[in-house]
């Protein structure tokens, strides 16, 4: 038994493999076992079946990776209910573009790591989507069809919130203001088909939306990442975050009725992390490992 947390990041060679690797993000080491758990699903959470994770041994991981130096001032203590999140180079930059602040402890080569309270993924998705929507509305309200607005729209579309209509209306507004006629016509036609309603109604809704945001630019403060928590940035098309955490047993219900997990050590209290290691894994080697694992399974 060991109290070592092993965190795995990726080295940025993800192009073309983002989705594949996202599905296998290392999620946690459990019970101090010297293994890495790789989630099979984007929205994996600890209460999903064991069959949804693969286990990579430390030996396999170290063959495929390189341990990174974490510039801890003081080694952290991970307490129950916390996630350990590792982010890549572009992640913080992308969040900052959306007005979301992100502070992590520096790891070499631009990676950062931080500890944060754990909440359910869908709560995070809603908050991220809300933040991106505010950012988008602010830009459009000021008549700015700029890269930030497009970025915010992209985040809204990728964050996985099952709320298609506001995204459609905003996408229409962006194409309309940008004079992107072909895209506007396409989104209007297909969006109306998808929602099973009249395209004229959708178009009217877009105009109402534009009138509203242009008359009252968004003043609602942006959620800050310090308050919002992002245990898994798995829906973002950016370098990936990994979120190892320890799981010990029981599930409790937190504010708002959503589940939280309490992480209890065998002593009945939180893990004391004596060492926190971050290893960068070569994405090609990891892909090869996943393929060989799948072949062995089949």
């Amino acid at each position, binding site marked *: 038994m060991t109290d070592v947390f092993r965190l795995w990041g990726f080295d940025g060679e993800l192009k073309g493999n983002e989705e594949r690797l996202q599905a296998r993000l290392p999620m946690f080491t459990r019970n101090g076992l010297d293994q890495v758990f790789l989630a099979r699903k984007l929205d994996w959470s600890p209460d999903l079946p064991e069959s949804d994770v693969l286990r990579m041994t430390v030996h396999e991981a170290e063959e495929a990776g390189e341990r990174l130096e974490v510039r801890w001032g003081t080694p952290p203590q991970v307490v129950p209910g916390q996630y350990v999140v590792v982010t890549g180079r572009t992640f913080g930059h992308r969040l900052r573009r959306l007005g979301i602040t992100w502070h992590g402890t520096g790891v070499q080569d631009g990676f950062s790591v931080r500890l944060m309270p754990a909440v359910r993924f869908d709560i995070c998705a809603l908050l991220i989507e809300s933040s991106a929507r505010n950012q988008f509305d602010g830009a459009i309200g000021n008549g700015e069809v700029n890269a930030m607005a497009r970025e915010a729209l992209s985040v809204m579309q990728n964050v996985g919130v099952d709320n298609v209509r506001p995204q459609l209306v905003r996408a229409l507004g962006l194409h309309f203001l940008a004079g992107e006629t072909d895209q506007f016509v396409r989104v209007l036609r297909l969006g109306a088909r*998808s929602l099973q309603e009249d395209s004229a109604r959708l178009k009217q809704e877009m105009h109402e939306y534009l009138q509203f945001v242009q008359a009252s630019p968004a003043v609602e403060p942006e959620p800050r990442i310090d308050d919002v928590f992002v245990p898994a940035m798995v829906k973002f098309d950016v370098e990936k975050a990994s979120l190892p955490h320890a799981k010990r047993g029981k599930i409790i219900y937190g504010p708002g009725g959503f589940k939280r997990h309490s992480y209890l050590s065998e002593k009945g209290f939180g893990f004391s992390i004596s060492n926190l290691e971050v290893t960068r894994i070569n994405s090609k080697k990891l892909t090869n490992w996943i393929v060989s694992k799948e072949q062995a399974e089949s």
Partner: protein
Amino acid sequence: MSVAIAAPDRPWIFGIRPRNVIGAEWQAIVQSILQRVFRTAPTGARTAEAEAALGLGSCIYFYVFQTSARFGSVVFLWRENPSRPWSSGDGAAAPFDTGGIWHDRVVTDPPLAKAERKSFVQTHSRPIDRWLTEFVSWIDTNYDETADYLANRPPRVGVPGIVYDSRNADGGWTWEARVRKASWNEQISIRHVFWSREDRTDFETWLIHRSTLDAKAAEDLIDLIQTVTIETPRHEQASVEVARYLMRIAAND
């Protein structure tokens, strides 16, 4: 068991691996499947090796009246188009995983030499235009109830040489239909797509905003989706719901 069973009630199953395990945009693959564009679909290296060694040609593979968690993220059920009957050269069906024979995933006793595997697969393959009759006959011969096949129980008789014990998994006795990519056209159509609301929403969002498909074709796909979708619970693989669906059919036998 009735041999009068209609093919639509013994559907073929084609599922994709968990969407995020796929190396390309999973939505692009779903789009190709919905459009039945398989001629240019890539073939994995191991599949290509088996196809070459076994003389199968380049094929698309389906489970016959069975599902699998390995290919269970988004699952497509297919039915035959009565107006476009099969030709015997369009493909074949076999009561085992043919690729598994080549790659030693299906165990035989005595073991088959590499040189023997092609003839073994040929001997036990049935022309695709007779798949239903052969499949129903197999079920009659090997099981008390169709549900036993669905429950992945090994057959009573099976195929001589294949071992039906713990050395083999269900690939040793699950029926596989293979259709030559070059022959693929209108012989079968999609009856249902099993997927979660999240997957469907993600796909439609991609289709609207990212796909390069022209608007009319995209519109047709949206219409098709609305017709054939069966939504599955969020945190459950689609294959689980498919298994329930097939079991309900089997219960009526």
